[in-house]
């Protein structure tokens, strides 16, 4: 039996020398390793040999098989690299595109609101909400905007009936919260607001604001600057600069408009910042004592600050969106970009 094996080995050595092409190598593979090949022939005689020798014979065939396989594979490898292109084999094209799963997105305005909420959450601000349909008192009187006051003209408003209106600012939530809670207060209030503005690329009769309010003992304008600066650096980037300009809001005093250095031009001036290098992003100020009076807070004991920002405006700035109407058309080609 051993003789068989030796013979096979010798024959193979001779035949290897005759292999000059890939085809020769393939034929050799069939001859030795094929279903009707020499190795299988050897296997088939196993049952015919005495049972005490079967095991060792089997083992020898196996090691022979491994040896031959290695030799022939080596040959195939050698020749296949040399040979001219053979019949084309199906390739596994890893560059084909992946199959797209359904992927949803939050609306870009929600993303902005969520981002703002997150920054302020780190600063200890809770989220508060208030009604969108309000009585005049919350939208005006309590915010130190008496009827017929010149500043009312700054606040065009949709009315439902006498005394009931669609809030034109989220500042209403300040009053709602302070009526319910005693200081300290630290909230932000995101939500929809309404103003009868004719719709164009910059205006919408409905838009979103985020209002902020902090009231406590010993809160100063310097703290307002600190909190806003923290927000701006976290939200817009560490290199962004903040600038405050005096302004006027009936419910804060002193009042400020807050600008950030234009990230488009880096402060050198471009069309986004009207060549000023600065972009207005929010209004803020110290809560006016008259507002505290309306909610029966002791204005001598407590001080506080409030701020408000337009969500659409910030989102437009962030992504370079030039038309506010895009937010409400809900075109999938738009929504999928964010």
């Amino acid at each position: 039996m051993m003789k068989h094996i030796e013979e096979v080995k010798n024959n193979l050595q001779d035949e290897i020398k005759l292999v000059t092409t890939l085809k020769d190598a393939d034929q050799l593979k069939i001859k030795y390793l094929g279903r009707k090949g020499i190795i299988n022939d050897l296997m088939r005689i196993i049952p015919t040999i005495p049972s005490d020798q079967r095991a060792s014979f089997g083992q020898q065939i196996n090691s022979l098989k491994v040896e031959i396989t290695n030799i022939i594979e080596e040959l195939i490898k050698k020749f296949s690299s040399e040979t001219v292109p053979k019949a084309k084999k199906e390739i596994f094209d890893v560059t084909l595109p992946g199959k797209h799963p359904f992927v949803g997105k939050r609306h870009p305005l929600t993303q902005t609101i969520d981002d703002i909420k997150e920054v302020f959450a780190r600063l200890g601000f809770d989220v508060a909400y208030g009604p969108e349909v309000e009585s005049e008192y919350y939208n005006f009187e309590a915010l130190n905007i008496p009827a017929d006051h010149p500043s009312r003209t700054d606040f065009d408003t949709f009315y439902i009936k006498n005394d009931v209106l669609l809030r034109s600012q989220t500042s209403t939530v300040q009053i709602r919260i302070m009526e319910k809670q005693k200081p300290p207060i630290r909230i932000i209030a995101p939500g929809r607001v309404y103003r009868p503005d004719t719709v164009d690329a910059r205006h919408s009769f409905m838009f979103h604001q985020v209002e902020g309010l902090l009231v406590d003992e010993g809160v100063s304008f310097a703290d307002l600057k600190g909190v806003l600066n923290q927000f701006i650096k976290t939200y817009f980037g560490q290199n962004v600069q903040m600038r405050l300009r005096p302004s006027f809001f009936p419910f804060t005093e002193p009042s400020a408009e807050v600008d950030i250095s234009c990230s488009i031009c880096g402060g050198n001036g471009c069309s986004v910042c009207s060549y000023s290098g600065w972009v207005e992003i929010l209004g803020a100020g110290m809560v006016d004592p008259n507002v505290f009076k309306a909610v029966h807070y002791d204005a001598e004991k407590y001080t506080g600050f409030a701020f408000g920002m337009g969500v659409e405006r910030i989102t437009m700035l962030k992504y370079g969106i030039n038309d506010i109407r895009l937010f409400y058309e809900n075109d999938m080609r738009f929504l999928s970009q964010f």
Partner: protein
Amino acid sequence: MKISYNWLKEYVNFYLSPEELADKLTNVGLVVADIQTVDDDFCMEVEVTSNRPDCLGFIGIAREVVAAVGGSLHFPETDYKTTNKEISKFINVVVEDSMLCPRYTARVVQHINLGPSPEWMQKRLKCIGLRPVNNIVDITNYVMMETGQPLHAFDLDKLSDKKIVVRKAMSGEEIVAINGARRALFHDMLVIADSKRPIAIAGIMGGKETEVCDSTRNILLECAQFEPRQVRRTSKTLGITSDSSYRFERGVDTEGVDFASRRAVKLIKEYAGGEVANGVIDIRSRKHAASKITLRMERLHKVLGIEIKRDVASDILKRLQFNVLNEVDDFIDVEVPSFREEIYREIDLIEEIARIYGFNNIPTKTSISVRGSVKSKYEVVEDCIRQFLIGMGFYEVKTFSIVDTSPLQSVNLWSDKSGIDIANPLRQEESRLRTCLLPSLINAKRYNENHGIEQVRIFEIAKVYLAGDKLPQEKTCLSILADTDFFTLKGIVSALLLNLGISSRCEWTVFSELRLFADERAARIQSGNITIGYIGEASKELGFKTSPCMVELDMDYFVESSNISKKYQALSQYPHVLRDLAIIVDEEVTWVSIEKCVMSAKASFLKEINFFDVYRGKQIPSGKKSIAFNICFQAADRTLKSEEVDAAQQIVLDALYKTLGAELRK
């Protein structure tokens, strides 16, 4: 307000380029929005907030420049010679309503030479966008721009009976204004009249008939103060605005009226000649009562968070022309000048000081106390829903809360009252608060279809507004529209409920709202006896190329019933046994009745039942259907034996046969 760079230098010396000046003004709160070169001058567009009418004139802006950069304010000349003819010989003025006209002054100039105004004046007016007319009109405009106080010149000879009456309009009266607009006047409007007719709408615009024209020789110069609200209302009602109404609406300085009048007469005498009658008619019911305010330095420190020295603070106030009465220790007593009437409290002074000191010179402190914020249940649920749906491939949309009054938009799933109308809508398309979100999602779907996107999966979380007592009920809803079949959407809703830990079983019953849903292919979703939503295939009438399904759900219910806190359930050590079954039942038998029957059959070890499919057709008798499902058995303490499961399964089959006549499909 537009200002000329060169003109401003009349009132204050400064050595700043237009850009530097713009910066300084912006930093004290007068934003310069634009700078344009006009010949050898610059026109600067200054944004003046509604609380600062004193800055609607060059002198007021010059005062801010002084406050910001120092220097002194130069007031223009007001001296002129008069004749010895008393003004009372020329005109008789009666102010009938002194509330609406706290001060009225008149001066008369005779024998003027009407002609063009001097070149330098025309140049300045043109620089700020005013068209030169003639010397008299130009001078009134010039002085208005200079002082912020509007003036008007009448042709004296056209006033009937040498009479001026400041009174309410009478019914039936009308006027043709200088701009040619003819307006009927109403009783609540204030007019300037002569003995016969209105000759000006008080504070808004003069009348055409008495305006200064080529033939004018003698003029009456009116310089007055009118009540702001009155001017605003009348201007709005008549639809006429002017530089004059703009200023009166915001309030003019009652003490500045005579100054402006004298200034104008001085210029008229100089550039139009003539003789000025002696004296002035000055009828006033009101004098400026100067507010006295005490500023506590300690309060200033507390509000601003910076210690500003007393002399620095008082210097700022002086530069703003506040009269500092006293400054000792920790206090400054001031008297507020007449042109800053909006200032009456300590906090107002603090703002003035902060503004001029420079907001950007106040430190940026980060000393607020540490506090951990807490998410409300609403926020947790909203985030959870959003994340779930986005994970399922949905896009969030945002649509308007104000909609039209079409039948589709009038759908109200939540109340039988009608929607709330806006009293002053801009357009019919946006005139009512919505009562349902789905029509807006339908519009969003349509918009996308029109733009070549046929498959959408969208949702919105927003409010609907249901008529209430005083304020409406604002109900937060979650609405979904998706190009999926009914049962896929239903599955998503069920999974969502499960995700929110809402374990109570919902009932789904057939529902009809043909404006939204296809007939007999919609359901009301109830939990107990509360309706929590409506789901269905979109009505074919909506005309979509695809057949989307949609659902509107009550978010408030979700927030209330959700149970986000999770608790671990021990995993069973023993395998479950699944048995696949198919039964044949009458067409009318619903899945829910099968489910109920199986679950209440009291079969041992029965854990759950899972639906596979419904089959009708070959091998199934007509009027019947085959329903395939599996039932799951499991014991907590051991592996079930096959015979035990067989027995339990038989109990289920017997129950199905008995209650529903269901036969096992072989």
